[in-house]
């Protein structure tokens, strides 16, 4: 009989909480958006599925051995944890985990040993997260693969477009202001590090957002990653109205001069130039941009094609699978269901809007003062969201002038935006990373 009880108690139905059920619906919703609507499926399918797995009641797939042990709730064990963390035994499980979080490495190790000895172990997704994201490796490997898929030709043909990539990053910092403002008026509760991590959503660049939040605000990583990828998928809906509102019919009609051909050698040297600048000016951005440049160099140098192919395929695919599942592990109810998450989602879309607007406006400015004509529509591509944003610029341009192909021109600001947000990431890590 006890077994029947054991089975029932270990079943999900006996343990499911409202939050978990809700989060499983969220996960299913992400899967629907990814599969039916084509929202960044490569990431949102693993994230959505991981989100469902993370919320399976009783499985504890997203929890560490210590968290599982505390939730196990054996009084004797809780007492030992309390003693270890130096808190009164009266504390609830949640308070125990807070104390655990703020304790030092030695205590962490002791707590893990205690949990292991009691027969608890890390959940599958927790292990994926530790290896893929907490170590920082997965976003870096993906960035390397992205570098190996990126063609800097259009950027090299028209370097001025880098300014558009810079301008669009204003969305990031405006969002930081928004976040601290919401905190100051007491609607939300974000630290400056949280605010920085939220702002990076405006970078419209998945791996950068995940890397920054894994460093500055691991607890918000789930919401930030979901926001970043969802809004990147929504770019075709978010940007056009803003672009039309800020430009005149004439401006949208502007045809740009054919890009000059770029030599193979320029393409080979460029990643090294970028790397040197990073090395001398912003070492904090070295891991991200270093791997990005490395991937791009492998692609362009032409002598390591088998490495470049692997970086663009097997390696990035394998990493994407585990990165997605790991992000999903942060969709666990008791961490995700929080008023702050709503704030993050709200601020994220603002970030995209402001980034788009500033890109377009600076493009107009450059058009006024620059010699060669620039179609302001390519400014919106500066938010990155490669290659979606560039396609949007092209599409809106064609509406105004059916013979005006802006795609290649928009690729410049588009990749510039990737560099821009990586630089912004570096600044934020070096300024608030210490906190």
């Amino acid at each position, binding site marked *: 009989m006890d077994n029947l009880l054991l089975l029932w108690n270990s079943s999900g139905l006996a343990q499911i909480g409202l939050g978990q059920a809700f989060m499983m619906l969220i996960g299913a919703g992400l899967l629907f958006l990814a599969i039916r609507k084509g929202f960044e499926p490569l990431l949102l399918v693993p994230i959505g599925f991981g989100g469902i797995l993370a919320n399976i009641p009783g499985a504890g797939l997203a929890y560490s051995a210590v968290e599982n042990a505390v939730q196990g709730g054996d009084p004797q064990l809780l007492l030992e944890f309390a003693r270890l963390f130096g808190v009164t035994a009266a504390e609830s499980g949640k308070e125990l985990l807070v104390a655990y979080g703020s304790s030092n490495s030695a205590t962490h190790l002791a707590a893990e040993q205690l949990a292991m000895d009691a027969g608890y172990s890390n959940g599958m997704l927790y292990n994926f997260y530790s290896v893929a994201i907490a170590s920082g490796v997965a976003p870096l490997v993906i960035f390397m693969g992205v570098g*190996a*898929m*990126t*063609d800097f*030709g259009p*950027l*090299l043909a028209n*370097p*001025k477009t*880098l*300014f558009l*990539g*810079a301008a669009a*990053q*204003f969305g*990031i*910092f*405006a969002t*930081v*202001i928004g*976040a*601290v*403002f919401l*905190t*100051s008026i007491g609607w939300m509760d974000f*630290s*400056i590090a949280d*605010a*920085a991590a939220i702002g990076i959503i405006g970078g419209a660049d998945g791996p950068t957002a995940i890397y920054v939040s894994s460093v500055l605000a691991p607890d918000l990583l789930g919401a930030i990653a979901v926001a970043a990828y969802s809004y990147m998928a929504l770019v075709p809906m978010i940007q056009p109205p803003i672009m039309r509102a800020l430009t005149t019919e004439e401006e949208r009609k502007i045809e740009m001069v054919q*890009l000059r*051909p*770029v*030599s*193979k*050698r*320029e*393409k080979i*040297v*460029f990643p090294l*130039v*970028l790397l040197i*600048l990073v090395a001398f*000016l*912003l070492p904090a951005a070295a891991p991200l941009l270093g791997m990005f440049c490395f991937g791009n160099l492998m*692609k362009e140098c032409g002598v390591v094609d088998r490495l*470049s192919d692997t970086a*663009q*395929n097997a390696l990035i695919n394998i990493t994407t699978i585990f990165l997605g599942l790991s992000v999903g592990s942060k969709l666990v109810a008791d961490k995700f269901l929080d008023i702050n998450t709503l704030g993050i989602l709200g601020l994220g879309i603002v970030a995209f809007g402001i980034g788009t607007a500033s890109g377009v406006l600076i493009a107009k400015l450059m058009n006024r003062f620059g010699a060669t004509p620039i179609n302001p529509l390519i400014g919106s591509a500066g938010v990155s969201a490669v*290659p979606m944003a560039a396609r949007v610029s092209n599409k809106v341009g064609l509406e105004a002038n059916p013979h005006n192909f802006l795609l290649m021109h928009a690729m410049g600001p588009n990749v*510039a935006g990737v*560099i*821009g947000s990586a*630089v*912004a990431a570096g*600044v*934020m890590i070096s*300024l*608030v990373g210490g*906190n």
Partner: protein
Amino acid sequence: MQQDIVGQGVELMLYGMGTVVVFLALLVVATTLMSAFVGRYFPEAEKAAVATVKAPAAPADNELVAVISAAVHQHRTRK
């Protein structure tokens, strides 16, 4: 950083945005110089065309998949 969080945010914006602009401005300069230098001393006219045609790798990769799956499909239908 003793002052209130709004102050910190504003500061972060100023320094952050400043760095981004300065950095990319320097990159514009460096890139232009590099291109000029390479173009002057290591010209490579004929290759250029190819270079630009080869374009982004991602599409290429997709096309590859397309080609192969096409081959597989033919193969299937053939039998």
